[in-house]
């Protein structure tokens, strides 16, 4: 028994070493996820940012029709990479509302002209009020809202093909 105990510190050290090594090769996921998923969409009203489109408000969600909220910005590079994925969703008939973070009408219009315009409405969220209310930590992020106005899913960072498929499947299932 005594002899076995002698090895205990080394065993503990080896275990700790293993733990640290594991953390080195498989870093933790630092994504901040919203705690608002599975909760009703908070109340908000955002004014329009471009003259051709209305703003976004809580009242435009629910009513039996699932929709997407895309939190984006004209100054955000991954948002450009995401644009073709959003256009695919638009082509499939998914209604998308944009929430523009810290942006200007001119810059948003230029962004839409250059990268395509998947949005039905775009709200001006100058102070990140709605972004924070949604529990979003950056741009781009996409939220799927069901027909009862509940947040069903959150997609952090630019959408990938598999996520677009997931959105389409879930959205068709909800209609």
């Amino acid at each position: 028994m005594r002899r076995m105990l002698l090895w205990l510190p080394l065993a503990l050290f080896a275990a700790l070493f293993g733990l640290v090594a594991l953390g080195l090769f498989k870093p933790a996921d630092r994504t901040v996820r919203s705690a608002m998923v599975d909760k009703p969409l908070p109340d908000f009203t955002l004014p329009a940012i471009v003259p051709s489109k209305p703003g976004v408000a809580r009242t435009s969600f629910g009513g039996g029709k699932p929709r997407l909220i895309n939190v984006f910005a004209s100054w955000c590079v991954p948002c450009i990479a995401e644009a073709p994925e959003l256009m695919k969703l638009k082509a499939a008939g998914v209604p998308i509302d944009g929430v523009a973070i810290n942006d200007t009408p001119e810059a948003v219009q230029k962004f839409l002209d250059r990268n395509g315009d998947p949005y039905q409405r775009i709200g001006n969220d100058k102070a990140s009020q709605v972004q924070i209310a949604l529990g979003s930590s950056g741009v781009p992020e996409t939220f799927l809202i069901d027909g009862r106005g509940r947040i069903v899913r959150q997609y952090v960072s630019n959408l990938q093909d598999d996520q677009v498929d997931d959105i389409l499947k879930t959205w068709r299932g909800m209609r």
Partner: protein
Amino acid sequence: MRPLPRFLSHAGLVPASNERQAGCVESKGLRLRRVGPRHKAGVTVVLGLILAAINPALAEKASLADTQLSDPAKEAQAKALMETIRCVECQGQAISDSNADIAGNMRSLIRERIKAGESPEQVRAWLIQRYGDYISYDPPLGGATWPLWAAPFVLLVIGIVIARSSFRRKR
């Protein structure tokens, strides 16, 4: 266009990129203060009014990100709360220390809510509802965190036991 790798592509996760929202810079003592000759203030106000009339977007209420509340007691409450709210972008910094846009917007939101009469704990609860316990540097006592509180006492008891047995041996 080849999609950006997912782990690199969220502005919240790119500390060194040129994204405006990713402004994770050590900022203590470096925040710019608006200084200028006094006589220009009137000109600025007039200019501001003209601009506001031209562009309604500029007429929005000013951000309180770097502007203190006029009530010192409320400002102290807001400041104390900001020091215990984690920045979701420059993770590891408090929003009071972070230069990230979203941290500034959170400071503004906290000041507005405190100004409107909410208590700091109400605002903290509201933020925890959005981002989970992660957002708060003041972790609540719960199922996952009780060892944090228990550990010092457990270690103290173990220490006393070891000390007692080793002192006995000496005698």
